[in-house]
């Protein structure tokens, strides 16, 4: 395997594995948020705001993987 192939393979694996965790996390978090909104619709606004903050923080992990994949392809 030459260096170019290894780079592309590494980028693919980085993105794929890196999307796994945040995907699970986002699913769990949004599921729980919807559950709480269904239980207590009167605090839906607060829950939604906090959910978006959580989404932002969780999603950043997947985007780190994306940036690492880009660095592997174009910089490394």
């Amino acid at each position, binding site marked *: 395997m030459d260096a170019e192939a290894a780079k592309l393979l590494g980028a693919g694996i980085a993105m794929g594995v890196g999307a796994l965790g945040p995907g699970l996390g986002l699913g769990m978090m949004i599921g729980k948020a919807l559950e709480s909104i269904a239980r207590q619709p009167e605090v839906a606004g607060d829950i939604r705001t906090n959910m*978006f903050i959580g989404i932002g923080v969780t999603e950043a992990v997947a*985007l780190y993987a994306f940036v690492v994949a880009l660095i592997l392809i174009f910089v490394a």
Partner: protein
Amino acid sequence: MSRKAKGIIGALIALGALVLLALIPGGEKAHFSVAEEFELKPIVKLPELVGIDMSVNKAVVYLWITTAVLVVLAIVISRTLKAHPGRFQAMVELLYELAHDGIVGGVMKSGRRTWFPYIGAVFFFVLASNLIGLLPLPLGEHWQPAYYAATANLYVTLTLALFTFVFTHYAGIRKNGVHYFANWAPASAPPVLKQLIWVIHLVSEIFRLVSLAVRLFANMLAGHAILGVFFGMALIFQSYLAALILQGGSVLIYLFEIFVAFIQAFIFAILSAVYIGGALDQEH
């Protein structure tokens, strides 16, 4: 003819059209690379100033456009305020209310009046920049319409994140004085653990800066890269059928990108508000 038979004939015609489309040979094989869309080539070459390249490139032009749009919008809206708002004024009012009540009012306990101007400005700037990035502007390599967004550039988002970073600590020091840094670790913690917690907090402060910048940058870059792949895939496959399907798909991606543009502006502003609010009202 029954409805069922009509449906079957219609489906057959559609299938035939698709097969015909697949059989037509596509155009010439064209060179296509998504990465080239994000290369910054100087439009107006300017000399270096203390080692910094001052050339005007695509990102700079996009920033100018964003600023111009926001300034014009603000002047027009403030001059033509009506008690019974039209559609446009209602939309701007809705966004203002979201920034004022939803973001600042929702997460900050104190200092709302002081910090709303910054957080509102950041919200509108990022939102305008993201949305303008979805318009094809004639700024490509050969002045062809091309996609780019100022926020799909790490330097722009890092600058915005640095504003939040500096303002967070400025707000904290102004409100709490020297206790601001002492409050990073809980006072009741045992001695060695306290210092350890303080160091961990210091690292997390730096990572807040990095994640704030990278989140916005990577989101916009990924969105534009996916759009570019959808548009460019037709050139690679050289097939009209693939072009039809991919162009249809790109419409869906485009709609999703409009949603992402809003969400990212919202998240950037709300996280700025959370960080500044956290520095103002520290836990002791």
